[in-house]
């Protein structure tokens, strides 16, 4: 599947396109199919997202898992600071990223 991701312009937070807006949680990302570029152009122009791009992801029962480690780290947080993970209690975050 293809999902769209970027950063919030004002805060820099990592965000994912959830079909209606930009979510902080990759689990809520939806398949953008071939419409990613048009979606990003529209959202960027409206300044609802910054530096957005489309990535490949794998659909899993827990939601989309980005194909590249870089985006998995973006989704969770630095692997070396579990306390700063987006869900600090998520003990499976490490194996999900690597």
């Amino acid at each position, binding site marked *: 599947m293809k999902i769209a991701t970027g*950063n919030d*312009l*004002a*805060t*820099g937070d*990592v965000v994912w396109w959830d079909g209606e807006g930009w979510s902080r949680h990759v689990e809520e990302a939806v398949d953008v199919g071939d419409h990613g570029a048009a979606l990003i152009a529209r959202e960027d122009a409206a300044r609802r997202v*910054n530096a957005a791009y489309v990535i490949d992801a794998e659909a899993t029962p827990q939601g989309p898992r980005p194909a590249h480690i870089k985006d998995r780290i*973006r989704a969770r*947080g630095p692997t070396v*600071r579990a306390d700063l993970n987006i869900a600090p209690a998520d003990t499976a975050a490490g194996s999900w990223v690597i």
Partner: protein
Amino acid sequence: MYKYDTYDQSIVDARVEEFRDQVARRMAGELTEDQFKPLRLMNGLYLQLHAYMLRVAVPYGTLDSRQMHMLAHIARKYDKGYGHFTTRQNIQYNWIELKDAGDILADLATVEMHAIQTSGNCIRNTTSDQYAGAAADEVADPRPWAELLRQWSTFHPEFTYLPRKFKVAIIASDEDRAAMRLHDIGLQLTQNEAGETGFKVYVGGGMGRTPMVAPLIRDFLPAADYLSYLEACLRVYNRYGRRDNIYKARIKILVHEIGADEYRRQVEEEFLHVKTLGIDPPAEEFERINAFFAQPAWEQGLSDELDLSDPDFKLWVDQNVFAHKAPGYAIATISLKPIGGIPGDASADQIDLMADLAETYSFDELRVTHSQNIVLPHVRKADLYTLWQKLDAAGLATANLDLISDMIACPGLDYCSLANARSIPVAQKISQRFADREADLGELKLKISGCINACGHHHAGHIGILGVDRKGTENYQLLLGGSGAEDASLGRITGPGFDEDGIVDAIERTLDRYVATREPGERFLDTYRRVGFETFKEAIYG
């Protein structure tokens, strides 16, 4: 330490307002990201993996306790309670919000700090010897010259859109503690036979994709021509440096392609012209700046005796304390490399503590080192034991300066949008694996970069590690034989790369071979240079 006058303050204050205005125009959509990016970078603001990152300048690595406390304040108020000290002697914050950037700059400006030119294709923060003003081996304090250069380069109208970034280092001793010859321009303060002050000028060094050790361009540049000559060096680069390929745009490529002799000829010709323009400040301006760097009032009659009966304290003194030029004083390095920790990171509480200790024990002065540690430059030897106890209680007394666990590591793929592989987890594993034997291994400079841009100085490591992306997985190449010191050299890649655990094992095989072949007194680098690359390659790959 240099103190702003109303001119300096007005420029930094104006910058705060200018950047606020630029951020507002970006938020309002008057600037596109493509237009805003170079503007924010020239103010040290990046968009990284998780958020914006702000790099704050610490000019030539020197700051006082008031400034250090402000760095802690920013970590708490605008970030997640910590900061990362960098190889450019700066500090960067990983979790900044764009909308706060103006307020952060305004806070910094109250303590004479800023983020001007900490990124972008302009002249960056000048780095220097972290022991400047305290080391016994310097001809003079290089920092007044660095300050003169800071002012000249700040918003230099001609050199704001250079082909690529531009980094200058200034040292004043034969021992190079600032990797001077791996900079775009490296300056060594020196004296000629007539006793006049001047510089050796090296141009065209650097790391990155195409590492080079800078050639000597001027053997003796009289101090009176200092800025004219730099202006000529930069003008030749601005006009003729390559702009067709970002990877070939650094000045090292220009100097390499036309040759050091031709570059020198062009600079000398431009210099003859520039020298007529009256851009060098008068000697009074240097004297004004120099006065701020007058030596502190050393106490007289202090003893050099130290009670080393506490073995842990002795270990720290042996490893982290360096000779000071004044009797009874010492230079103490605070390691930001706890075993298994994140190299260069410090919490807000630790930053506050270091500020307090500097105020109490080091004439209110601290230094950030290019090895990502903090130095208290002027400590009475009589205070060292108390200082050490306070550091130890805060996890800041690791006795590992210049040992394998005192490694340089870039933020890598845990934070950086350019990285191909993570650096920090590798650093942590190496630190833990070798902590027990590092004293026996002796001086060993290990440097890790998470991509070819080489922010972790892997080319200059006795042992270097370069993280690459191999078909979507992290892979680590091993380099041996680099040095950023006065014996500067570039490391050589040993062969095929390794995974995260494999690279640690490969280093262990390397070090086992070193221990087996070293002669008495030899550092790893000495043994490597004596016995050669193949011996180690054989040890690594069998």
